[in-house]
């Protein structure tokens, strides 16, 4: 197979685009697709400071590589969840830090074991919560802290087309209208939280993994032990089966949704009523100062991770 552009040996065939490309033109293709998504969804401008959430995986490290190659002002942060199984967090941190160093990008590390003396697994066991729900809450909070510490204008994550299409598929299966209204690849800054964007939404996982291989990016090849057997993977598997029969389906599915998202943003009278009841003004958390809507003024992160300080505050009241 030859590269459609230069005729040199191709390393990848992109069936959804009906092209085969050599390493040089494939790298160019990936970077152009990312630049196109940034522009199309008005994610950020050239002079914005972008904080990239790096996990040591292919997507986030590829994103860091692409944004620096496109000339953006980038910093990074890594959240160490303290997952000991197969040295998952240790290896991920090493890969993330090594790549940031190679690219000359500053990388802040937020380590749960160092901050709180335990990782996500131990915390989940003690609280009888699932590691994934605890991880989601913890990462969302620390991402906002990182943006504040880095004085960044926007947080960029490595979510790709497959992630977005699978989430859309899952939310449609449940007709979860509140999530269907929020699946856009840009979440605006609000309530004191920074803007969050997903610049890889035009690219499939396969394209990003190929980019990482071609660019020689050393990423963690194995998965978080908690994601094994996750329902999310089943949705991806089904979408990939359809994609194999009909290339371009994932792209049409997700991009069509972003063009029609307004249909899900019209709230029914019931939802408006519920929203009025639920919405309370944001105020700074009494412990950490981050914005929270909690009635008692203590954010969910501090409530979970800083129980001694919660007791102290409650005792003073």
């Amino acid at each position: 197979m030859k590269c459609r552009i230069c005729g040199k040996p191709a390393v990848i065939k992109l069936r959804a685009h009906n092209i085969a490309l050599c390493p040089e033109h494939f790298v160019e293709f990936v970077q152009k697709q990312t630049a196109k998504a940034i522009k199309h969804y008005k994610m950020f401008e050239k002079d914005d400071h972008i904080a990239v959430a790096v996990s040591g995986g292919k997507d986030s490290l590829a994103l860091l590589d692409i944004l620096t190659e496109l000339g953006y002002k980038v910093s990074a942060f890594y959240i160490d969840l303290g997952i000991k199984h197969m040295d998952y967090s240790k290896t991920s941190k090493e890969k993330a830090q090594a790549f940031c160093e190679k690219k000359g990008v500053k990388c802040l590390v937020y380590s749960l074991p160092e901050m709180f003396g335990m990782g996500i697994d131990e915390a989940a066991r003690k609280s009888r919560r699932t590691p994934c729900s605890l991880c989601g809450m913890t990462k969302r909070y620390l991402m906002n802290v990182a943006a504040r510490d880095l004085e960044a204008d926007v947080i960029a994550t490595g979510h790709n087309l497959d992630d977005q299409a699978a989430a859309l598929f899952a939310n449609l299966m449940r007709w979860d209208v509140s999530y269907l209204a929020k699946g856009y690849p840009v979440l605006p800054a609000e309530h004191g939280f920074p803007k969050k964007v997903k610049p890889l939404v035009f690219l499939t996982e396969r394209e990003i993994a190929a980019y990482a291989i071609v660019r020689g990016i050393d990423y963690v090849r194995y998965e978080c032990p908690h994601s094994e057997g996750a329902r999310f993977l089943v949705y991806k598997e089904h979408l990939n089966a359809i994609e194999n029969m009909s290339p371009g389906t994932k792209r049409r599915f997700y991009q069509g949704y972003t063009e029609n998202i307004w249909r899900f943003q019209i709230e029914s009278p019931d939802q408006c009523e519920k929203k009025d009841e639920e919405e309370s003004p944001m105020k700074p958390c009494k412990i950490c100062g981050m914005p929270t809507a909690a009635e008692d003024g203590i954010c969910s992160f501090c409530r979970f991770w800083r129980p001694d300080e919660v007791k102290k505050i409650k005792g003073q009241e």
Partner: protein
Amino acid sequence: MKVITVKINGEERQMPAKGTIRTLAVDLGLNPETVLFVVNGMLQTEDYRLQDGDEVEVVSVVSGG
């Protein structure tokens, strides 16, 4: 039938000579949308004809999100 020996993720496997990555993917029951094939350290397209002694890494591209 002439056969060749290739290494797939470190394990030796025999397959018909003139076999390609596409035929290997079918033999392994893999959806080509979910994997990449790195042969002797180089990413290769599905029409790559495998040679005796090739070392193939099947890279899964699907992650848990």
